[in-house]
């Protein structure tokens, strides 16, 4: 977050430099025009008797003034943010003070331009600019004091401390302005900090909003799925009943000799069963079944799960759960569903044509964590998908609702269990379920 604050601060300061440079580009140009006007109005010609020539002030205003303005004007227009621009502007502005003082014949009032310029330069909020400007003023004073002392002090031999008197006023203003610069920068820093906080908060808000939207969508889908699923059950039952009746009657009659009739009756039954399976998947996912925790021996449970799973040729189901494993407390129906889904997944993960094994093992004891693992040597799951496979409606298969593993995740969560996946493409996958500490008697109580 600190780096972002610095970024924002730098941005803000660069913007400030740009804006101030733009002001100075106008000011420097205006001063040049003004200087020329002054010379033209006040001192256009110098005389010798009747003869006159263009006053040096005109040349000074046009050429010296133009020279002073040239480089800084160019820089403020092309490189408004750079340090060099600021420093050169500082130098030029103070030189303009001097020139204007000369053009107005040393009027006291024009000397105010010096202090006004320093204040303007402070808009850059950069102490270096003030330093350079002050150096210019000081050197001008110093050099003229050395070479043309009368022009500075009005007397031939000024006391050494006269220089300090003039310097003191400038330093006084400098101190105030530098202080103001740092204050300004502090304010900008705290603004940058606040903006960073705001950005962070907005990002979080955006994330939360997305999560909420997704959750709401899922809930809506779940509700829709549930109501559709429920609605479908009655018609499906009626179809099933009718099919059963027709099947029984037809198989007893002459039509049984027609191979297709028999085949299609079987087909009807299977497809009805498939419909049923899909609806059950949907409803299992949306359903909130309360847990009936009872002591549940694992090895027989896995045997039951194996008996439900649609087996495949060449895929062996191996129950490696030791028979003497202690008995955890689980909701038998729901846990069986979890195992069925995982084993079914493992069976389907076996690539076609290859033989494979699905192993289920378990370990643990009362007073310790239980661990059930479903291991297959099938196609494996890519690492980037590991987090997504438990998402509802996510599937890599061409058929299927994508709810199998989501149901597993939901049911396990309700049990307070966790599930993790380890996989290598081409080598196989291992799903590991961790059942937390509990004793059956405590759970059943």
């Amino acid at each position, binding site marked *: 977050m600190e780096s972002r604050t610095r970024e924002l601060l730098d941005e803000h300061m660069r913007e400030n430099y740009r804006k101030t440079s733009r002001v100075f580009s106008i000011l420097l140009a205006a001063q040049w025009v003004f200087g020329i006007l002054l010379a033209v109005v006040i001192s256009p010609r*110098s005389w010798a008797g*009747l003869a006159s020539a263009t006053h040096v002030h005109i040349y000074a205003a046009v050429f*010296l003034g133009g020279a002073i303005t040239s480089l800084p004007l160019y820089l403020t227009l092309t490189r408004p943010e750079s340090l060099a621009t600021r420093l050169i502007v500082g130098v030029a502005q103070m030189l303009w003070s001097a020139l204007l003082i000369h053009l107005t014949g040393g009027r006291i009032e024009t000397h105010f331009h010096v202090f006004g310029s320093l204040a303007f330069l402070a808009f850059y909020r950069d102490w270096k600019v003030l330093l350079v400007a002050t150096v210019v003023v000081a050197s001008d004073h110093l050099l003229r004091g050395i070479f043309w002392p009368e022009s500075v002090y009005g007397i031939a031999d000024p006391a050494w401390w006269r220089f300090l008197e003039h310097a003191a006023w400038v330093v006084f203003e400098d101190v105030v302005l530098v202080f103001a610069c740092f204050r300004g920068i502090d304010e900008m820093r705290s603004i940058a900090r606040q903006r960073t906080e705001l950005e962070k908060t907005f990002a979080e808000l955006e994330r939360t909003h997305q999560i909420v939207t997704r959750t709401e969508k899922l809930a809506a889908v779940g509700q829709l799925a549930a109501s559709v699923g429920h609605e479908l059950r009655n018609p499906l039952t009626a179809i099933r009943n009718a099919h059963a009746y027709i099947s029984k009657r037809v198989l007893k009659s002459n039509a049984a000799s027609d191979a297709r009739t028999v085949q299609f009756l079987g087909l009807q039954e299977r497809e009805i069963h498939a419909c049923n399976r899909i609806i059950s998947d949907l409803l299992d996912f949306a359903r909130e079944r309360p847990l009936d925790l009872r002591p549940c021996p694992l090895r027989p449970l896995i045997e039951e799960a194996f008996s439900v799973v649609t087996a495949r040729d060449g895929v062996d189901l191996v129950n490696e759960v030791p028979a003497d494993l202690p008995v955890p407390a689980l909701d038998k129906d729901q846990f069986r569903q979890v195992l069925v889904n995982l084993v079914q997944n493992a069976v389907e993960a076996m690539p076609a044509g290859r033989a494979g094994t699905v192993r289920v093992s378990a370990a643990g004891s009362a007073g310790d964590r239980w661990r059930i693992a479903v291991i297959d040597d099938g196609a494996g799951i890519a690492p980037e998908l590991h987090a997504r496979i438990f998402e509802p409606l996510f599937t890599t298969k061409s058929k299927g609702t994508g709810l199998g593993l989501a149901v597993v995740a939901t049911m396990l969560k309700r049990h307070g269990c966790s599930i993790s996946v380890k996989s290598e493409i081409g080598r196989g996958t291992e799903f590991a379920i961790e059942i937390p500490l509990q004793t059956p008697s405590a759970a059943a109580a």
Partner: protein
Amino acid sequence: MKFRSRALFASATAAWLCAVFAGTTALMRYKNAAGAQLEPAGRWPAESTVARVPGRSMLVLAAHPHCPCTRASLTELDRLLVRAGGRLQAVVLFVKPRGAPEGWEDTDLWRRVAAMPAARPLLDVDGVEAHRFRALTSGQTLVYDQEGNLLFSGGITSARGHEGNSVGRGLILAALDGARLEHPTAPVFGCALDSPENGGTP
């Protein structure tokens, strides 16, 4: 910044600084270039027709009516007269060269002097009086005491067309207070009173 453009930028800045410095120095030298000054006579010129006011020290200032730098001298004159507090009476000789058109001398400078209480403008045709007082440059100031002795001869500005405290002012005031000064003179900054063909340098 690439190396080439960096070098270019550095040289541009250096050139700029040089130009500016040169320009400023040239301006300074012009501003501090003193005008021509002659060694004055020690007493009020006898042939002068300028009226003297008895009981007062006299200040004579030679001025070119159009010289812009003389504005500063007049400002200083005003201040000086105020500081002198009635001890000084000033006469400003506005030199009108031969051949100048009608009303050439009627400038804001003339009107300004006319408005000053302790000073009066005087038209000096062809610079005759200025010549008597040995003034060559606009702004040349001469101060004489009541007996007619010269107290001061020089300029009362610190630089050309520059108002503000000057060496001349200090010397004049000191002299009025009675100090005996070794070299009561100061550089004069201003336009030449005479045209170039007569020796004047603008």
